[in-house]
């Protein structure tokens, strides 16, 4: 009897890592999160409210801040639906058709992730700027893209393109197309197949991709900074407004705007974990 319990504890011990390792790793991970994630978040909020509620509210109520918020929402409002549709199309093309250059397309979808956002912004300046390839044509027709809202939308569109497609491609690959073929063989039209068979199967992954896409669309700094021109009240998005305010020593204004972006990030995280939980079910 004793011998048996003894060997059992022995095996247990043999299978376990030593306590110092376990607690050491946990402490490192937690410490890192506290230092680099929670502490900055706390600083953003405390700085935003450093001069009290009224200062916080009035900083956000400034016309420039409101204009920046409006522009950020407008950009997201245009880019997120567009990239949702484009992402579904790209995922569909890649997982359902065989064509030459398919692997190249798959790689290219990730390009916006691998290129520095500043370079992405510069590409648009080189294309549509006054000295750019198409710049003359656009200025002849009195269309402003760079240092204007269309440029910001284009840059954001480029940066956030991969999110939806990247969520969908692995899922749709794993699902295969048999259910869709079955729907067609039962007489369904292409739209019926998509909305009744494909969409219900991919909806959680799609929502997840849309959420990430939205978070990035609202938070993008680098590419937008290059094409925006920082015109107050006109081409400043919320992240740009944070920088401008900070550079002008308007700390409450900067951190108040930053707190809105941080709040958005937290909401995104909560929704994301809810979606992950639903997907797991």
């Amino acid at each position, binding site marked *: 009897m004793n011998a048996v319990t003894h060997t059992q504890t022995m095996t247990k011990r043999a299978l376990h890592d030593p306590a110092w390792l376990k607690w050491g790793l946990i402490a490192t991970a937690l410490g890192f999160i506290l230092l680099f994630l929670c502490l900055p978040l706390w600083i953003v909020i405390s700085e935003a409210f450093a001069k009290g509620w009224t200062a916080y509210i009035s900083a956000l109520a400034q016309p420039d801040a409101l204009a920046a918020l409006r522009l950020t929402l407008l950009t997201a409002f245009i880019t997120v639906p567009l990239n949702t549709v484009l992402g579904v199309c790209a995922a569909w093309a890649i997982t359902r058709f065989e064509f030459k250059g398919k692997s190249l397309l798959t790689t290219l979808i990730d390009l916006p992730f691998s290129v520095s956002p500043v370079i992405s912004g510069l590409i648009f300046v080189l294309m549509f700027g006054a000295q750019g390839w198409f710049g003359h044509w656009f200025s002849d027709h009195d269309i402003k893209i760079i240092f204007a809202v269309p440029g910001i939308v284009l840059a954001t569109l480029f940066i956030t393109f991969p999110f939806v497609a990247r969520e969908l491609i692995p899922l749709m690959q794993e699902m295969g197309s048999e259910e869709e*073929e*079955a729907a067609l063989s039962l007489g*369904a039209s292409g739209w019926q197949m998509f909305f009744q068979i494909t969409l219900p199967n991919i909806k959680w992954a799609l929502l997840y991709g849309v959420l990430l896409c939205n978070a990035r669309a609202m938070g993008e700094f680098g590419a937008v900074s290059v094409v925006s021109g920082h015109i107050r009240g006109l081409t400043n998005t919320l992240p740009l407004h944070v920088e401008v305010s900070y550079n002008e020593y308007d700390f409450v204004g900067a951190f108040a705007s930053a707190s809105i972006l941080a709040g958005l990030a937290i909401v995104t995280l909560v929704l994301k974990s809810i979606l992950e939980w639903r997907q797991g079910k």
Partner: protein
Amino acid sequence: MSIILSNITKNFGQFAALNNIDLEIPEGELVALLGPSGCGKTTLLRIIAGLEQADSGRVVLNGEDKTEQHVSHRGIGFVFQHYALFRHMTVFDNIAFGLRVKPKQHRPSEADIAKKVHALLNLVQLDWLHDRFPDQLSGGQRQRIALARALAVEPEVLLLDEPFGALDASVRKDLRQWLRNLHHELNVTSIFVTHDQEEAMEVASQVVVLNQGRIEQQGAPSDIYDHPANAFVSRFIGQTNIFAPDDHDAIWLHSSGLPIADKSGKTAHVRPHDIEVQKADDSAAAHAVLKDWQHLGALIRVELVKNAAQGEQATVYAEMPNEQFRRLDLQRGDKVNLRIRNAHWFH
């Protein structure tokens, strides 16, 4: 509904999946497309369904050329190898799907749909599962639900891709019989794909043997077994002993009673039950030595080794009823004489 395929050719890149297939299937048959994996049988089924487009050739269903028609308008029911049940729908909704996606003017009322779905569920004997989801069903149950779903739209042709491929051996046996009976009941022209010759012989009224994108033979199961058209079919269907009457085997075959006079360059295909085994008295001139035997239910398969003195050493299989084997009273190592009753000769 009759099916006529003419000149169907399909290439995947360099690989020729189907080569000039001509096939005619009369109404009401239950046809097996039989062949080794990679022979093009599933591709052919998908071309009939319209899930795949042939490079050339025509698909004519019931006298109507449907080559250019979309899969949703061909009036076919397709049962997929892995069932492809809609995982987010209940069994009931799965079967109702084909009725609910009909254009408004042809769509039955919800009450009629419910009536029809329950009738189909009763037909496949699974009405008690109507509110389950596909992942709560066993393989055999999924198979039958997939069949009910395909039948809901009253297809004129039923196409089944490896219908028993993913099932346990015992479930497979039951379902084969069940499919046969169901076909008798509904009499809808059906084609199923299989690589299992036993399954094809047992279930189908017509068997089409495919190999490397070509049709090797088409006929009733007994036809194909008794009169194989060529060496491939003979080897693929059932067990066969193959002898080449060159200088080694000639004497051996001759003394086993097989006339080989005008057969040079050909090989003899002999079914195991066409070989008669007798105990040899004269041990020096015996044809073979008994190596081992296996019980196959009512039959015994004996494994014989050809006598080296009379030809090349190789294993020969013979089959006989249990009773006969007992009467022969053979032991391992006993010398036996053989008599070959029948052979098919192929180049």
